[in-house]
């Protein structure tokens, strides 16, 4: 038994490891560049690598995630040294680069680090054994307690929590970056991100560009992970499966997101990048090495999306409980299918578009270099072909959470279930046809813009079906508003604002005024918060008891909601106001003569209030795990199958399988059941205990 809480050991080792790493990096940088760069990139990169690895070593010891990170560090260095060695051997003039290694060395090293991580953490060991012709046990027993979350587990519930936790960490990081530049933006003219400010080889304005770009992509990756977290935890429970169809693939899809996140943090220190998360060339072709870390990080994270979606689809198609026909699926499962179809098929395009810029930088292939026959606008088509459907990946699960939770708290069926189910598919389908509405000012063919206006406005139709169905579900109900329901209601209102500010952007001529301004920033913050962030919180407050057997504090939950919601509305109204009046996006500073200072100050204060509300959430979240009020039964009185078994959820979910005997949302229909657990002569599912349980070291 440890005497000190592991977190303190972790923090102590983080400081020690970070300092050692800093020293090593500083020394290596001195050797190669002949200058002491105390606030430079190389020292910071080594410090970051060693600090993160040491933290987990302190918390967890040399196994699981720590082992993965150690392998990633070693793999990165070996890969970088390998390329550096080749360059030295062939007599290259630049063996090293401005950040110790040359760009090709860093890219190859980072890739090698990616691959090394998944071997180190142990998530490919079963597959490696199969390749070698060895057998592996069907099920792996997890360690009891919190320790299982830091190693490979094949249990979808553990993986769902791992996804959710990682998403929350990334939200904290991305949110902190936003608070830094929101503080700078509170007043016109530069206060601290000035040209004399220098950190990680970036001046103030350059550092702003990096922080803003990383805020975007880190939040996006956190959304993808959060979405995967909810789907992974909840979908097998809803369809009555004991796990996902492919548990090892599931674990792989999660773990690959960890080195991806490390790469995004490397982008911060290796000189940053100044393009925004959209990475448009030619600017991205000439950005510092941090650009490549960004490209590779996103590419790696994309694997998580693609493989995770394949799993969800296979699970829903093949592992449903008896009697669960298509029209008796829980509505969240329909949302998950639609989301997964998009993520499975569209993600490749962002990987491809980034890969092409990487090749242009590394191999001189002029895909987007106009001087050599390339076309910069082509990148935008390839990029947005994924990135627009991606936003539906972000919001469809959240909209599914809204549809799933409303009947429970209104005690009434989901109005027009079939139409709501089909609307998710409708949004997914139409969502593939609208991408160029991000490009109306890009120089694309002027007439081709018009069909995209039509298709963009068309998306409003299935979205409207959802809104009207939600209104009709609430109408005539018996409404209660505990914390999950508050976040559902907040989600509806905020997503409505995001959705209503969509059609003005679809009108091409009007969009020429709105595009690349804070109006768009307000629009997408509304849609993202309404479609993901609020439902994400709702889902956590709702399913937390199912996972832990305790409930989160209602008082602090309500405080979180009432602090966050008005602040967020003020923030996005402020954004749209200044955007309409001329505030461009992605700028570190603005002309005082524009008269935007007051609005920006208010927006920054609102941002701080949101930050505090999320901090309250985190405290509530962690405290309630061990000290929350016990909640071991069906506390929400839901008809859904997972609430018919005790909390925390049993390890293999349903020891006794259930059969679907009715509709999911028949609240108000006397003597109607959705599921029935077979009591006699049923097929008990036996889980063979493995002859030898694999211990993860």
């Amino acid at each position, binding site marked *: 038994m440890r005497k000190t809480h592991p977190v303190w050991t972790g923090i102590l080792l983080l400081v020690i490891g970070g300092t050692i790493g800093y020293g090593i990096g500083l020394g290596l940088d001195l050797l190669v560049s002949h200058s002491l760069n105390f606030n430079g990139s190389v020292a910071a990169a080594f410090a970051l690598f060693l600090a993160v690895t040491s933290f987990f070593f302190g918390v967890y010891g040399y196994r699981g995630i720590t082992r993965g990170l150690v392998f990633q560090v070693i793999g990165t260095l070996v890969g970088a040294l390998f390329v550096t060695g080749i360059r030295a051997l062939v007599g290259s003039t630049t063996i090293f680069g401005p950040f110790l290694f040359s760009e090709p060395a860093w890219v190859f090293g980072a890739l090698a680090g990616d691959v090394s991580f998944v071997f180190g953490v142990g998530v490919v060991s079963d597959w490696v054994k199969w390749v070698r012709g060895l057998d592996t046990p069907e099920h792996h027993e997890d360690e009891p307690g919190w320790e299982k979350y830091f190693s490979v587990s094949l249990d979808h519930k553990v993986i769902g929590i791992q996804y959710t936790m990682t998403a929350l960490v990334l939200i904290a990081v991305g949110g902190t970056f936003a608070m830094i530049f929101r503080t700078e933006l509170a007043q016109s003219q530069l206060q601290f991100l000035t040209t*004399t400010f220098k950190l990680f080889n970036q*001046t103030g*304005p*350059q550092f702003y*560009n990096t922080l803003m770009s990383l805020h975007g992509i880190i939040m996006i990756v956190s959304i993808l992970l959060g979405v995967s977290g909810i789907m992974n935890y909840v979908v097998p429970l809803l369809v009555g499966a004991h796990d996902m169809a492919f548990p090892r693939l599931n674990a792989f899809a999660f773990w690959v997101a960890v080195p991806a996140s490390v790469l995004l943090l490397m982008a911060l220190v290796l000189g940053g990048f100044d*393009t*925004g998360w959209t990475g*448009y060339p030619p*600017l991205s072709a000439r950005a510092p090495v941090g650009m490549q870390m960004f490209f590779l990080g996103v590419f790696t994270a994309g694997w998580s999306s693609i493989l995770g979606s394949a799993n969800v689809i296979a699970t829903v198609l093949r592992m449903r409980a008896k009697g669960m026909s298509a029209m008796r699926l829980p509505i969240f499962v329909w949302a998950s299918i639609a989301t997964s179809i998009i993520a499975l098929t569209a993600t490749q395009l962002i990987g491809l578009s980034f890969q092409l810029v990487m090749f242009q930088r590394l191999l001189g292939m002029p895909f987007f270099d*106009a*001087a050599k026959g390339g076309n*910069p606008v082509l990148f935008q088509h390839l990029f947005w072909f994924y990135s627009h459907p991606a936003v539906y990946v972000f919001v469809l699960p959240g909209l599914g959470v809204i549809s799933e939770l409303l009947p429970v708290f209104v*005690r*009434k*069926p989901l109005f*027009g*279930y*079939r*139409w709501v189910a089909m609307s998710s598919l409708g949004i997914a389908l139409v969502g593939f046809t609208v991408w160029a509405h991000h490009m109306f*000012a890009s*120089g694309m063919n*002027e007439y081709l813009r018009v069909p995209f*206006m*039509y298709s963009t*406005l*068309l998306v409003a*139709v299935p979205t*409207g079906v959802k809104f*009207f169905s939600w*209104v*009709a579900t*609430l*109408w*005539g*109900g*018996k*409404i*209660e508003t505990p914390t999950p329901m508050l976040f559902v*209601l907040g989600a509806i209102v905020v997503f*409505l604002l995001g959705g*209503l*500010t969509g*059609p*003005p952007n*679809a*009108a*091409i*001529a*009007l969009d*020429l*005024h709105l595009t*690349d301004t804070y109006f768009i920033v307000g629009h997408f913050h509304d849609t993202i918060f309404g479609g993901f962030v609020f439902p994400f919180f709702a889902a956590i407050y709702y399913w937390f008891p199912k996972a832990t057997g305790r409930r989160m504090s209602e008082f602090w939950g309500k405080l979180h909601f009432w602090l966050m919601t008005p602040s967020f509305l003020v923030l996005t109204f402020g954004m749209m*106001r200044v955007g*309409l*009046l001329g505030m*461009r996006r992605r*700028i570190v500073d603005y*002309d005082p003569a524009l008269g935007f200072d007051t609005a920006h100050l208010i927006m920054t204060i609102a941002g701080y209030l949101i930050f505090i509300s999320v901090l309250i959430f985190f405290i509530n979240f962690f405290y309630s795990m061990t000290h929350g009020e016990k909640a071991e039964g069906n506390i929400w009185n839901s008809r859904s199958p997972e609430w018919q078994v005790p909390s925390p959820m049993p390890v293999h979910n349903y020891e006794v399988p259930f059969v679907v005997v009715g509709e999911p949302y028949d*609240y*108000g229909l006397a003597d109607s059941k959705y599921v029935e657990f077979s009591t006699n002569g049923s097929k008990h599912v036996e889980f063979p205990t493995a002859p030898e349980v694999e211990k993860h070291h």
Partner: protein
Amino acid sequence: MRHFVIVGILVIVMALVTYFGLTSIGLMPVEASLQATQIDWMWNLEMIAMSFLFALIVAPITYSLIVFRRKKGDTTDAEHMEGNTRLEITWTVLPLFLVMAFAYVGAVNLADTRRVDPNAMIVKVRGIQWSWSFEYPPVNGVSVISDELHLPKGKQVLLRMTSSDVIHSFWVPEFRVKQDLVPGRITELRITPIRSGNYKVRCAELCGTSHAYMEKPVVVSSQADFDTWMTEQVKLAEQQAATPEGHGQALVAANGCSACHSINGAAGIAPTWLGLFGSQVKLTDGSVVTADEAYLKESIKAPQAKIVAGFETQLMPTYGFPDEDIADIVAYLKTIK
């Protein structure tokens, strides 16, 4: 039934309050172009739709939260209302027609903003990190390049634009319309200014470190004032063409050097030019050199050969000037004391 009537009234009241509330706070900048009036018309239409739809959803929800609250002690479920196919069809088909109508109106609106005046004045626009350069139709064979955009009121201008490096975007909020500048191609924008005034064009596509500061003045004036300005510019161009320093100064203005190099000693992204010629310069490798003519020439031709200490995070691009131009620029630099 009573519920529906009350909500119906609430929707109408909320829609009106929202619409008139929004329109009363002056959401848009002044309309300084014909395109602005057309676009603001479309915006107004959108605001009507947004106000109505906002009320249509929020009013019934708010009403429900108050009237359909669970009563204390009531543990029964609500009415078993599964759906209503006719309602579903209505609220699918009606919005479908509405959005298609909006798209059609949007298309017509777009066409209005793009009406071609065959006599439009053509101005060539160049975007370069982080400055703008405008080339006017030649007068008596003299080409006028300025870093200010002057336009006569009431006359359509056709901007033919390109970028020398990365993607930029031309935007004057008071004109509304925006267009990206793409390297390797020419993009066009037609604007008919209708209101005299001093505006600013600011880059609207993230283009690197100084994207926030990439701005130049836009002056809309009467035709007479525009002609006067043009005459002055022609004279200035002729004067500048006459001497090497003058030509150098013209090149500097046309290529946006002042985005990084100040001439008044102010600190910036790059070393100031004030008193540069003949001064001692410390480089990143620790050595100190004299900024003589050879140094200045090399700094323009191969900017990365010698990097001044403290400026290594932002490296100067290569412009590809011919040697005679470089000599003229150096001649100009020598005059900045």
